[in-house]
């Protein structure tokens, strides 16, 4: 669904792919951070990837016998994707970023690039997706690094159990992007104790250093909306009418690439509006998390406690309420109280700190298995956090001059770096 949202958001800033690259030897063309984030990589700058690969969908029953609420009748287990070679090969697990499924476009590209280079691959959805909350999260309250890592580890074991009869594996690797990158670090640490996989290499792509800080930065984007995030509906409708007027006044055949391209070249939306739309996309994602977690735990946060929703009930009001709640609302009113109850003496700052890479920096610094890929202009990182990554990982940090947040992930040089890292 987020693809659909991005489709609309993508309209706001399509960049001419012939844009001049800065003279720094890096060919990714999109200069702006927001634009790169939204547009990603123009198709002609991606590497040649196979159209069809040997792969199948895995449906994992992680908690056999778990009762699912009737509203989630369609959820039959955690959906992962498995790509397999017909010979002995290393297996790479990939974790999606916040809100993204195991079939997200970015994961599919990474999977194909690795498959082409001779790896088996299993992609995993983000623990923040509804599917994961319903089917694979022990608490159904996502966001805690240690618990998410334990959930992910359980999922990896279940996936491995399901496929290990069909393939031969030489070694295991792990990778993730955005929040999935930070989770990969915590999963690798857990693996040092549990030792099911003994990951040989772990790659983190565009990780937040502190999830809390990065969420704060994304929430700030909403502040550029007139009236703030509480007036997101008015803002969205205004952007929409701008969009449709633009179509009407031009002579367009359909809402297609050509139309979207011209939206960018004509600069229909301002920087502030672009930022606001990225923030709103994040909120739409977060709304899915809040609602599914609330239904699963019967916490009475946005859905009345003890209400049993049926598949035909209207969710319209819950949708509106959930998108109007911020990350801070979720953290302060829902997430923190839950952990406070379970870990007496836990302060808010203590909880925030435990979601940061700094909490496991000794491990990250000493373990040679890690590498990190980051971008100078990634808006979810502060200058200090970027320097921190540089200093923590030293030569194991690859910092690109631009690409925004994940915009250059599918660029051919970046994918080549990723494949190369796992091959060495």
């Amino acid at each position, binding site marked *: *669904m*987020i*693809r*659909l*949202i991005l*489709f*609309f958001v993508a309209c706001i800033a399509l960049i001419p792919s012939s844009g001049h690259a800065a003279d720094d030897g890096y060919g990714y063309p999109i200069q702006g951070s927001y634009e790169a984030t939204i547009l990603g990589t123009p198709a002609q700058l991606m590497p040649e990837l196979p159209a069809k690969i040997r792969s199948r969908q895995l449906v994992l029953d992680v908690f056999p016998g778990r009762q699912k609420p*009737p*509203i*989630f*009748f*369609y*959820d039959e287990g955690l959906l992962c994707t498995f790509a397999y070679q017909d010979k002995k090969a290393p297996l790479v697990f990939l974790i999606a970023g916040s809100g993204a*499924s195991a*079939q997200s476009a970015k994961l599919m590209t990474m999977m194909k690039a690795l498959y082409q280079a001779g790896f088996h691959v299993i992609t995993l*959805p983000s623990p923040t*997706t*509804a*599917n994961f909350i319903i089917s694979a999260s022990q608490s159904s309250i996502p966001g805690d690094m240690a618990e998410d890592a334990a959930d992910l580890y359980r999922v990896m074991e279940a996936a491995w159990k399901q496929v290990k009869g069909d393939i031969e594996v030489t070694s295991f690797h792990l990778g993730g992007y955005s929040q999935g990158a930070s989770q990969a670090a915590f999963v690798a640490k857990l693996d040092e104790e549990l030792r099911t996989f003994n990951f040989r290499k772990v790659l983190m792509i565009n990780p937040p250093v502190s999830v809390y800080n990065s969420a704060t930065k994304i929430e700030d984007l909403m502040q550029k909306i007139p009236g703030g995030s*509480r007036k*997101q*509906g*008015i803002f*969205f*409708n205004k952007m*929409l009418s701008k*969009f*449709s007027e633009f*179509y*009407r*006044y031009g002579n367009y*055949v*359909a*809402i297609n690439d050509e139309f979207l391209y011209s939206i960018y070249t004509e600069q229909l939306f301002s920087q502030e509006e672009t930022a606001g739309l990225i923030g709103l996309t994040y909120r*739409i994602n977060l*709304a*899915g998390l809040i*609602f599914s977690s609330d*239904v699963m735990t019967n916490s*009475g*946060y*946005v859905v*009345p*406690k*003890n*209400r*049993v929703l*049926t*598949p*035909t*009930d*209207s*969710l*319209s*009001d819950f*949708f*509106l*309420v959930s*998108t109007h709640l911020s990350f801070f609302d979720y953290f302060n*009113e829902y997430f923190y109280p839950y952990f406070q109850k379970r870990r007496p003496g836990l302060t808010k700052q203590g909880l925030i700190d435990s979601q940061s890479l700094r909490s496991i920096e000794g491990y990250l610094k000493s373990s040679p298995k890690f590498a990190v890929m980051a971008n100078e202009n990634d808006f979810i990182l502060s200058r200090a956090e970027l320097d921190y990554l540089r200093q923590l990982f030293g030569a194991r940090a690859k910092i690109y001059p631009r690409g925004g947040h994940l915009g250059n992930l599918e660029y051919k040089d970046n994918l080549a770096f990723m494949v190369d890292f796992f091959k060495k």
Partner: protein
Amino acid sequence: MPQKIFSNLLSIFALVFSLILTGCAATRFNTESEVPARHSINEFRDQRFAEVADPWEGFNRSMYRFNYYFDKHVFLPVVSGYEFITPTFVQERVSGIYNNLGEVRNFTNSLLQLKGAETVTTLGRFLTNSTLGLGGMFDPATSFGLKRHDEDFGKTLGYWGADSGPYLVLPIYGPSSLRDTSGLAVDSGVNFGIYTAVAPFGNSDKSLVIAAGIKTMEAIDTRHQQSFRYYESGYPFEYYMVRFFYHEKREIESRPPRKEDK
């Protein structure tokens, strides 16, 4: 014989429908009393976004769910069987043939909207692809610069000012609106009329079987060309996002032109 199959199919549908509709009523149970939620709609003073007139939401959600089950148990297995036994090259040619036949609908409707240039282009496409393109199997028209303009009677109604009316999820066919559903009926009628008039298999005593085969193949090809899968996103508000994008795309593409242009 085909009529018999058809009526059998109908009764199966009716059965599945009623099972689904009663199924959701039966699942409503409530053991403990409700406690109001911490956050409710009353705290927010904002416009709704992604809002579309949807007075029949309960019915629509049932249909949405029916389509999910129909896809899962009937439609998609047939489509993947088709994809499995047919080489990609053949699949593309089949799609081309049906897309070319769709130009007839594009032509009649751009004519009805008095879009001169578009009508000529569409006619040019149809003639080019039917001849040089071997009945639509190939699409040389696009490389000659003749762009495809998708039109249908729903858009024609919108062009002449008809409101979309309430959102409507049709069985099997999927997201629509009251206006687009009547448009669909008209387009199908016109199609049928042309088919009967041309009557390529009119002399054959199996004409009905052949016609049904052609229609079934068309449905399979249409589903084959669509990547959408019900509930695939897993997003709990998917219904609203799909409704919004369907509605908005139709609104934008079927709007009457600016006054100055007339």
